[in-house]
C-alpha cells in the first residue's frame, strides 16, 4: 500500500558523518603515536649522552660579534629548556583528550570510568616525571651565558712579569626536574698566566670562587643556596618533585576537561541530528501514506473487485466500499501520528485483511496470536501493515497454492517481539541482506532506527514450512504513546 522510501534518508547521512569523524580521529591518533615514538626515542637517545655542556656567549664586551648560527642555537636551546617541561604534556595531550571522551564521567559506568581515569592520571604523571627525569637525571646542564675577561699585570715574587687573567663566567645551571626557575650563577675564576700564556700551576694560585646560588621566591624572599655539584638536600628534592607532580596533575585535569567538553558537544550534535532525521522520516511516512491512494496494486485491484460486485451483489459491493473508506480514514489518521497502540495497529490490519480476503478468497488465510498484555503497548504507526502487504504480494500471490499469513506478538522481558510469517514463496535475495525491491521495508527500517537507535531491530529468516518470517524487536513502551515534539 505504501510506496518505497526513495534514496538516502537524513539519519543515514548523519551516521555517515559520525563514522567519518571517528575514522579521521582514529587515523590522527595513529599518526600521532608514530610521532610520539620517534620523539621519545630521540629524547631518550639525547639523554644518554655523558657530557652535555654547551658554551654560548650571551653578552661579552670585548668578544667579537657572534655568528648568526651561534645565536640561533643558543636561543633554540633556551627555548627548549623552558619548554622541556611541556614536552610530555604536548605529546600525551591527544590521548588524554581521546580517553576523556571515551571514558567520560557520566552516571552510567561512573565507577569504572573513574578508576580508568585515575590509572590514566597516574600513568600520565609517571610518564612526564620519567621523561623529565631521564632528560636531566640530576645532571645539571651547564650553559655559560657570559664571559668577561680582564687581565692585569703584576710582578711575581721573583720579579718576572705576570699577567693575571680574570675570567668571569656566568653560568646557567639547569636541572629542570628540581629547580623551577634557573638563575644564572656567577663563577669567578682567577688564573695566573705567564707571558707566554701558560697557566701557572702553583698551588694556591688557582682560585676558584663560586658564589652561592640564591634564588628568589615569588614573594621576594630568598631560599637557601645550592652547593655546586653536590646532592640536593633531601627535603628540597622532594618538595620540588611534589610541586612538579601537582603541575602535571593540573595539566591532566585540564586536558580531561577539554576531552569531556568535546565529548558532550558531539553528543548534543548527534541528538540534534537524530531529531531532525526522525522528523524527516516521519514526513516521508506521512507523504507515503497520503500517496497510498495512488498506489495501484492494492487500491485499484480492490476498486476493480468492487466494480464486479456492484452487478453481482450490491450489498457485498457496499460492504467492501465502506470497508475501504474506513481503511483509508484510519490510514490517514495514523499517518499523522508517529505512535499508535498495538490494538489500533491490529484494527487497521484487520480492515486491510478483510478487503484482501474478498479479493483472494480462500487463496489467503490469516491467523493472529498476540499476547493480550501487549495490546496497549505503543508502537510506531503503520508498522505491521506494510509487512503483511509484502507477505501477501511477494509470498502468497505468486504461489499457485493457498497460503497463510500469521501475525504473532509476545513479550520477552523489556522487549516486544512481533513476527509476520507467510508460507508462500520465500525470498532468497533477502537472505543476503538485500531488501525486496519496491517495498515499504526501507521506510520501516529507517523509522525504527531513528526512533530507537540500536534498541530496535528488523530481521528476516526463512519459514519452517517455506516462505519468510519477518521479525521486529522493540523496547516496551508505556501505554500512552510518548509525547513527541515533532508531531504536527
Amino acid at each position: 500500500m505504501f510506496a518505497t522510501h526513495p534514496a538516502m534518508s537524513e539519519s543515514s547521512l548523519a551516521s555517515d558523518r559520525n563514522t567519518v569523524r571517528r575514522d579521521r580521529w582514529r587515523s590522527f591518533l595513529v599518526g600521532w603515536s608514530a610521532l610520539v615514538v620517534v620523539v621519545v626515542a630521540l629524547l631518550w637517545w639525547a639523554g644518554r649522552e655523558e657530557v652535555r655542556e654547551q658554551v654560548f656567549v650571551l653578552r661579552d664586551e670585548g668578544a667579537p660579534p657572534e655568528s648568526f648560527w651561534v645565536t640561533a642555537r643558543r636561543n633554540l636551546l633556551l627555548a627548549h629548556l623552558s619548554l622541556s617541561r611541556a614536552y610530555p604534556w604536548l605529546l600525551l595531550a591527544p590521548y588524554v583528550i581521546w580517553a576523556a571522551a571515551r571514558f567520560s564521567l557520566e552516571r552510567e559506568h561512573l565507577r569504572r570510568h573513574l578508576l580508568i581515569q585515575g590509572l590514566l592520571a597516574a600513568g600520565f604523571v609517571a610518564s612526564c616525571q620519567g621523561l623529565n627525569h631521564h632528560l636531566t637525571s640530576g645532571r645539571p646542564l651547564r650553559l655559560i651565558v657570559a664571559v668577561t675577561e680582564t687581565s692585569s699585570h703584576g710582578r711575581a715574587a721573583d720579579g718576572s712579569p705576570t699577567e693575571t687573567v680574570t675570567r668571569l663566567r656566568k653560568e646557567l645551571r639547569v636541572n629542570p626536574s628540581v629547580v623551577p626557575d634557573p638563575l644564572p650563577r656567577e663563577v669567578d675564576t682567577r688564573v695566573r698566566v705567564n707571558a707566554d700564556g701558560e697557566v701557572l700551576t702553583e698551588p694556591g694560585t688557582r682560585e676558584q670562587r663560586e658564589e652561592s646560588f640564591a634564588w628568589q621566591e615569588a614573594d621576594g624572599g630568598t631560599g637557601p643556596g645550592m652547593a655546586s655539584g653536590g646532592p640536593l638536600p633531601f627535603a628540597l628534592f622532594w618538595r620540588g618533585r611534589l610541586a612538579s607532580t601537582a603541575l602535571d596533575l593540573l595539566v591532566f585535569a585540564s586536558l580531561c576537561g577539554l576531552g569531556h567538553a568535546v565529548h558532550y558537544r558531539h553528543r548534543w550534535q548527534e541528538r540534534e541530528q537524530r531529531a531532525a532525521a526522525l522528523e524527516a522520516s516521519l514526513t516521508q511516512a506521512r507523504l507515503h501514506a497520503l500517496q497510498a491512494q495512488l498506489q495501484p496494486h492494492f487500491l485499484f485491484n480492490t476498486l476493480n473487485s468492487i466494480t464486479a460486485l456492484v452487478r453481482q451483489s450490491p450489498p457485498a459491493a457496499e460492504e467492501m466500499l465502506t470497508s475501504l473508506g474506513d481503511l483509508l480514514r484510519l490510514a490517514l489518521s495514523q499517518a499523522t501520528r508517529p505512535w499508535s497502540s498495538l490494538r489500533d495497529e491490529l484494527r487497521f490490519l484487520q480492515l486491510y485483511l478483510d478487503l484482501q480476503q474478498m479479493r483472494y478468497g480462500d487463496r489467503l488465510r490469516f491467523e493472529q496470536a498476540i499476547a493480550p498484555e501487549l495490546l496497549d503497548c505503543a508502537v510506531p504507526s503503520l508498522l505491521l501493515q506494510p509487512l503483511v502487504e509484502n507477505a501477501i504480494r511477494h509470498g502468497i500471490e505468486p504461489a499457485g497454492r493457498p497460503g497463510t499469513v500469521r501475525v504473532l506478538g509476545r513479550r520477552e522481558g523489556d522487549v516486544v517481539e512481533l513476527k509476520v510469517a507467510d508460507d508462500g514463496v520465500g525470498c532468497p535475495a533477502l537472505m543476503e541482506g538485500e531488501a525486496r525491491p519496491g517495498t515499504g521495508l526501507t521506510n520501516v527500517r529507517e523509522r525504527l532506527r531513528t526512533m530507537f537507535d540500536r534498541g530496535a531491530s528488523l530481521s528476516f529468516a526463512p519459514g519452517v514450512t517455506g516462505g519468510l518470517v519477518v521479525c521486529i524487536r522493540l523496547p516496551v513502551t508505556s501505554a500512552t504513546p510518548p509525547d513527541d515534539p515533532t508531531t504536527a
Partner: protein
Amino acid sequence: MSIRCLIVDDERLARDRVRALAHSEPDLEIVGECRDGVEALAAIEEHQPGLLFLDVQMPRLDGFGVLAALPAGELPVVIFTTAHDEHAVRAFEVHALDYLLKPFKESRFRLAVERAREQLARRRQEDSAGLQSLAAQLRSAQAGGPRILVKSPERVVFLRAAEIDWVEAAGNYVVIHVANERHITRDTMSAMEQRLGAAGFMRVSRSAIVNLQRVRELQPVEPGQFCAVLKSGARLAITCGLREIQERIAEL
C-alpha cells in the same frame, strides 16, 4: 461474426467484471476463463480464441510469459487488464492491441473491443484474399501505421497513426489530437516527426505535425500565407511552402 475470447485473471472478481461486460457485447463468445498463465496456454491451444483479455501479474506464469510461449505467427489480439501502469511500455512492445487500467469504465472497455473488431476484420480480409506472403503479413501488422504509446497517470492508450488528426507542441509535452480527444504525452516534436514522417504526416510549422490524409483543403489567409483546414474542422497555420504540401499530398 462472433469473436471467440478468453478471460485470464487470477482474481475471481476481476474475471467476473470482464465476463459481465463481455456478455453485453453480442458478438463476443466467451470460450473459457483461466486463473493463471499455464491454464491460459492450455485453453488457447484447445479453443484457439481470437481475442485475449489478459492480466499481467499471475502466479506460475504471468501475462507476458503467456505471449512469449505462443507461436509467433498465430498471436491472438491481446487486451491487457491490470492495475499497474508500469507494464504499459512492455505491452506496447509486444504489440498488444490495448491496455486497460483497472478499474476501467464500461465505455473504455467498449472502445477496446471495437478496436479488436477492426483488427480482426482486417486480418480476415487479408486471409480471405489469400495473401499469405510475408509482405502482406507485414502490411497487415502495420495496418494503420506506426503506433504511439500515450501514458498518463490515469490512463494508457495505444494509438495508431491513422487515428491521429494532428500533433501540437506544448512545452516539454506534445498534444495528440484524435477526433475530439486530446492525449498529452511527454515527448518532443522532432521525435514525433521521425516516427510519423513515413506514415503520411508532415510538419507544417514549428508547433504542428499534420496527418495529410485528414486535410480537407488549403486556404489562403494572407497573400503568401496559407492554412490547412482538417476534416475535423481544425485550422492550422502553415509556415512551410505551399508547393511542398501539395507535392506530399499528391504522393499519397
